[in-house]
């Protein structure tokens, strides 16, 4: 009886926290899928893509001490190095071909006059096959080249270094009696990297990674199988002659656009917030550009600035110009920049405005009325109440717009073609699609990403320190 009495409250105590903990589990259950989603569809592909900027996955080819896949590594040869070909070996493969080595097909043939032996597929043209694809009849190919021996060697076993069993004339009909698959290895020598030093490396390499020159004794490493981290692509990006101009232009555009944009957006937001008549109409009008793609805006402004476009018509109409002026050409760089600035202002100011409007709406009416009652004129209310309270909104908008400014692309292409005025995003595109240099394109992408991150951190810190210093 007594024990029961004691245990009852204990049970309650044990139950209490457990129930509490279970309630707290729910947010984590919600977070888990989010994290998995982010990892799978965001972080993983992004890292995969960005790693290309600093990682060359075909950089070096390991060469082995014997021509088999389980040989020991003698050293590494970088991609593109010139090699001496010392030897060649074909290993007979039993059964299915599974390795990714280059293979050679050999036929055991016999001619009508009794010659018998093995010859590579390159020397025999298959003429007849059975219904399941097995070659039955072939002819000996003609050798090209004047100095070459016109006869074709037939070997004892399917290996070029074995005994020659017979020689056959070109075009002779042969019966194909058997086939054999060889994997081909080359013994190569070049200066490369041994296990612990740089020096002459000699060893066997699978044939598919080695390109053989016509003389049969020299070649080069076509590509490697092992990756290494490298600054090569980053260096290539920095040394790229378009890198400097692209980076400068991106910054210039940002410096020209953002201040004007924020002043305009704030003024527009104040107009809407002032609850003048038809302010919702203003909101709709101001929001139109948000519904247009940036390329469409670029084309729209191109049509304004073009030879017989709106601008020229107006200028001619009011008599400022006698003939249409060419605004967008290779020697009017500044006009192109001006057009881009205008287009970007037209296109992206409303998104800032929407953020500022929502920030203004978050300020309670009574707060503004209190300021008015205590004698603050409209502009003093803007300065002492609205702008300080808008700081978080402006910060968000500034981060957003700066990041977008680093990515400016379609408007620049539409108005300048991407040659005279180029920006970072355009260079990324050019490297990827025109020059097919995925790694350098990645380096550009990483650069844009780092700049965006740096600017976001800068804004966050700048605003925080300001609050801290004025705080206490």
């Amino acid at each position: 009886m007594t024990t029961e009495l004691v245990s009852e409250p204990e049970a309650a105590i044990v139950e209490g926290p457990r129930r509490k903990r279970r309630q707290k589990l729910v947010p984590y259950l919600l977070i888990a899928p989010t994290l998995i989603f982010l990892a799978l569809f965001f972080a993983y592909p992004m890292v995969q893509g960005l790693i290309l900027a600093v990682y060359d996955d075909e950089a070096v080819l390991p060469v082995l001490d014997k021509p088999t896949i389980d040989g020991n590594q003698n050293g590494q040869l970088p991609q593109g190095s010139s090699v001496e070909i010392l030897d060649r070996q074909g290993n007979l493969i039993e059964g299915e071909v599974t390795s990714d080595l280059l293979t050679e097909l050999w036929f055991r043939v016999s001619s009508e006059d009794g010659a018998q032996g093995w010859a590579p597929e390159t020397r025999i043209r298959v003429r007849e096959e059975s219904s399941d694809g097995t070659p039955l009849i072939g002819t000996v190919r003609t050798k090209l080249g004047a100095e070459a021996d016109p006869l074709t060697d037939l070997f004892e076993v399917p290996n070029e270094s074995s005994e020659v069993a017979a020689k056959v004339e070109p075009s002779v009909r042969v019966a194909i009696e058997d086939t054999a698959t060889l994997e081909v290895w080359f013994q190569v020598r070049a200066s490369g990297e041994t296990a612990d030093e740089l020096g002459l490396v000699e060893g066997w390499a699978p044939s598919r990674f080695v390109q053989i020159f016509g003389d049969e004794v020299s070649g080069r490493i076509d590509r490697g199988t092992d990756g290494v981290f490298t600054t090569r692509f980053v260096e290539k990006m920095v040394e790229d002659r378009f890198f400097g101009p692209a980076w400068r232009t991106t910054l210039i555009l940002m410096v020209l656009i953002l201040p004007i944009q924020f002043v305009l957006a704030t003024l527009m937001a104040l107009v809407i917030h002032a609850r003048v008549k038809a302010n919702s109409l203003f909101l709709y009008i101001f929001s139109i550009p948000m519904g247009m793609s940036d390329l469409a805006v670029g084309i729209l402004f191109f049509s304004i600035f073009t030879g017989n476009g709106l601008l020229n018509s107006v200028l001619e109409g009011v008599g400022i110009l006698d003939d249409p002026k060419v605004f967008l050409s290779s020697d009017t760089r500044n006009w192109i920049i001006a057009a881009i600035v205008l287009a970007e202002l037209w296109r992206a100011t409303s998104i800032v405005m929407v953020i500022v409007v929502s920030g203004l709406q978050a300020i309670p009416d009574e707060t503004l009325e209190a300021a008015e009652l205590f004698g603050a004129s409209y502009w003093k209310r803007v300065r002492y109440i609205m702008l300080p309270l808008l700081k978080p909104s402006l910060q968000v908008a500034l981060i957003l717009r700066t990041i977008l400014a680093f990515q400016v692309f379609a408007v620049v292409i539409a108005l300048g073609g991407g040659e005279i005025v180029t920006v970072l995003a355009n260079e990324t595109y050019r490297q990827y699609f025109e020059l097919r240099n995925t790694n350098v394109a990645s380096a550009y992408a990483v650069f844009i990403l780092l700049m965006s991150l740096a600017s976001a951190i800068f804004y966050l810190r700048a605003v925080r320190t300001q609050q801290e210093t004025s705080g206490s």
Partner: protein
Amino acid sequence: MAEIRIEKVSKVFNGAYAVREADLVIEDKEFLVLLGPSGCGKTTLLRAVAGLGMADAGRITIDGRDVTYLRPGDRKISMVFQSYAIFPHMTVRENIGFGLKMNGVSAAETARNVDEAAELLHIEELLDRRPSDMSGGQRQRVAVARALAMKAEVLLMDEPLSNLDALLRLEMRAELKRLLADVGATTIYVTHDQIEALSMGDRIAVMKDGVIQQVDGPSEVYAHPANRFVGSFIGNPPMNFLDGQVVQSADGVRVQVGQSSITPSPTSVSALTDFVGEGVVVGIRAENTEVLNEPRGDAVKVDVRVVEPLGSQNLLTITVGGNLMKVATHPTFETSPGADLWIRFPPEQIRWYDASSHALLVGGPD
């Protein structure tokens, strides 16, 4: 001198009157409470005085100066908002000094006024803190200090205590009353809490549906409600109203309530004579009845329905001639539901109301 005159002020929202032809004079240094249920137009009228929502019709003068359409900043007024409307990005010091700074008062004088106001409200140690980490009561003090720092002759307050919890409200009520008496500004104080109104105001203006019903001192408003609405809005429990019939009997004019009849006081007889044969409403407060255990004279027999001991008194719910009413007795008075009880209506405590207009017929304050 800062007398506020509100003359025939109206304000219309979406075609409906929020304030209708309000007439009100608040004398210099007077503390006037604007009392009424939620939505009756108190804030609207106060905002018209403040200039935050201009009147649609009528005239408002402060100290003889027509301010009806003046900007709020030019009216020489100060205000405590219902939500306090503290500036969240400023320290308490900056908040209190804001109005002075906007009005171009010198830094030295601003600092002096800020310190003074902070001292009055005991928030000196909060001066360098931000409102974001302060309690409701502290914000409320900041809001009052900010209003007082202006040293305006007119002070407007919109339900300044309604966002505080009950205990704090009680405490703050007494403190504000003392404080505002010292400051001596002409004050309009809006509230929907009748106890607050009774305890604080020099005079109370009771509003209903945008119309001012009665403007009088607290005791007059309580004892002589100008109509049924005021009687039922002020006082807890509300004033009792019984439907009666004026009859002419052998010994003069009497009022029949159910089976019983009430003798009016000599002063009300003349007024009631006009209503002979018609209905009239009898108004009497719970504590003004005499409750008796046995019949006596003109006492009326009633049924006891509910007995509520409240400590300082017992509240009985009874029925008289089909009307429910509440009467208060001494806490030692013993009775129970279903018991026989007689009550007497002292003639001088009865207020007579018109059966249709619900207006006080006779017995208004002298």
